[in-house]
């Protein structure tokens, strides 16, 4: 065997497991969804073969769900970002190195428990026998927190904050401290240094965190269901209903394809933006 042929064989063998995996569990299911999306709903629900774009034409029927998702997911990700940044900044630049590991561990520990259980706990904390009961005990009037948009936002921030903190922390931790000194040396106030240097150079981390949280929120249905009382309807909720309640597979598939398309477009845009703002050679989104 020639060495070139051997090299090709070795490359093929090394990549084969991943390629097979991706083909079986990403390409094939996605192809199936595309095929379903071109079909029709069978009379009793499910899929009936057809070749029609009717499902895509019907997408505006879920316009509200798309709108909710496209407004609330970025808003939730932004809220996470605003809260996560100071935490990450503190961890990376202000904490004594010997204490840093402990604090980072504290941020990761909640991940050891299922998001469902943690979110369910919030149902009790925000429910009538939780915070409102304590407030009543101290003489405040009856208040309701659960099943409000605020509760959904809180759940989102609580659930996804670590995913936002960690990438920002890593990018800030890798930040060359001498760049901050150089900035100060050149006459920049700490405020100016933060916006001209620190913020700009942590942009890739912010973008990674933002994209991660955004992707998860675009498909979110658990938190709005549990903490929003099923009144806040995300695309994820629409999908669950279409597949599990009305069993309209083709329409559900069309929405899934549309969601994938939206996600890809959003990520490409985010990638482009980050590359331009941070001037880095490459930006690793995930």
């Amino acid at each position, binding site marked *: 065997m020639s060495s070139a042929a051997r090299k090709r064989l070795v490359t093929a063998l090394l990549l084969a497991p991943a390629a097979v995996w991706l083909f079986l569990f990403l390409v094939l299911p996605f192809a199936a969804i595309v095929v379903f999306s071109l079909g029709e709903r069978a009379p009793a629900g499910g899929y009936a073969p057809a070749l029609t774009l009717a499902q895509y034409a019907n997408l505006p029927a*879920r316009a509200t769900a798309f709108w909710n998702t496209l407004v609330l997911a970025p808003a939730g990700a932004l809220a996470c970002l605003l809260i996560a940044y100071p935490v990450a900044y503190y961890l990376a630049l202000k904490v004594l190195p010997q204490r840093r590991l402990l604090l980072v561990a504290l941020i990761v520990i909640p991940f050891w428990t299922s998001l469902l*259980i943690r979110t369910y706990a919030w149902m009790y904390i925000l429910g*009538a026998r939780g915070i409102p009961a304590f407030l*009543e005990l101290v003489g405040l009037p009856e208040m309701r927190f659960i099943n409000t948009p605020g509760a959904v936002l809180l759940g989102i921030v609580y659930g996804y904050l670590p995913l936002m903190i960690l990438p920002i922390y890593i990018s800030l931790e890798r930040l060359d401290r001498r760049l901050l000194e150089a900035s100060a040396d050149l006459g920049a106030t700490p405020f100016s240094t933060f916006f001209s240097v620190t913020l700009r150079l942590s942009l890739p981390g912010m973008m990674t965190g933002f994209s991660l949280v955004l992707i998860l929120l675009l498909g979110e249905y658990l938190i709005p269901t549990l903490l929003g009382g099923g009144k806040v309807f995300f695309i994820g909720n629409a999908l669950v*209903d279409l597949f599990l*309640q009305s*069993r*309209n597979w083709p329409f559900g598939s069309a929405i899934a394809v549309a969601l994938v398309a939206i996600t890809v477009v959003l990520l490409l845009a985010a990638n482009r933006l980050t590359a331009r703002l941070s001037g880095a050679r490459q930006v690793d989104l995930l």
Partner: protein
Amino acid sequence: MSKSYRDGLPLSAREFIDQLLRFRRGSISRRHFLGVTGLGAATAVLAGEFGLKPMPAFAAGELGDRMSIATWPNYHDPQTFVDFTTKTGVAIEVNVFGSNEEMLAKLQAGGSGWSLFVPTNYTISTYRQLDLIDPLDLAKLPNYDAAAQNKRFTAEGEVAGVLCAVPKNWGTTGFAVNTKKLTAPMDSWKSFFDVAMTTGSGRSMVHDYQLTTIGNALKYYGYSFNSLKPDELAKAEELLLKVKPHLFAISSDYQPAMRSGDAWLTMCWTNDGAQLHRDIPEINYVLGKEGGEIWTDFYAIPKDAPNKPAAYALLNHLMDPKVAVKEHIANGAPSTDARVNALLPKDLLDNPILYPAADLLAPLEFGAAATLTDPNRAELMARFKSA
């Protein structure tokens, strides 16, 4: 202030453990769906640890060592399954669902793995039509006595003369109201929706279930619970969209919110109403005088059931009146079986929640098969939820 420190606690230690166990019992991926959300299944392997003690009647191995059933939340006496496992050595995995649509979706998708499930009356003809369930072989169900059944509730178990399902219990769909919070008397769906938009604003719940939520909105105008007429559905949608901003939640898992005091008013099924009233007397169960739903839940065996012998054995066990009576005491729904009624304690038989007066029962309608598959009702529900 008479409030104790404990009253202010979010939940008691016992409740917390109960909740935790409720999640612990399942496989991780499925429990994300379940119970809590009413969207999926909490799966429980009961009695897996009880060991193999087959009764002489069952040759060892004949029934296999495990089976899986799909049913509703808070619907069984857990002891029933423990007893069965002790008797036969078959461990039972319990999957809990929030709607008939969801059960149908799982069976349609295939590979559900269930050997027995609990569909509601109006769905059985569709299952049969889609060839998803087996006709029942009564020879394997000696404990079932057709003569003891109330025909009003059992009719839909037969499809075109073929017996496909036997009844578990019947019930009604009304609403539960916390009379300490909402003191004005309520007796109709009109009052339900009106109160939800006024004194009960922010404290009222409707089901995450097209049949009852749309059906009861139709009853507000006096239309049929099962209506498929576009103009009537349009009126119901108008009402639902009007009430939505006032709702506390759209969810079929309403017991926790009613118990905690978050919600004061909710659409409610008999058995939940009975359980709530038993524990919190100020929560009343009310049937709308315009009518509404009456229903029967059945046992049926899926065509692709992996363990049919065990399914028949468990079903026969459940048909034993001595077993069934414990089930009814536990879940609070009335029985269709005269033999069971004879064994039920008197206070249960006298409970108007379980056995409402005849004039209230008269206008109730069984759900119609067509509502299950009607795309317009499904879309109406989606528009309501996403509005």
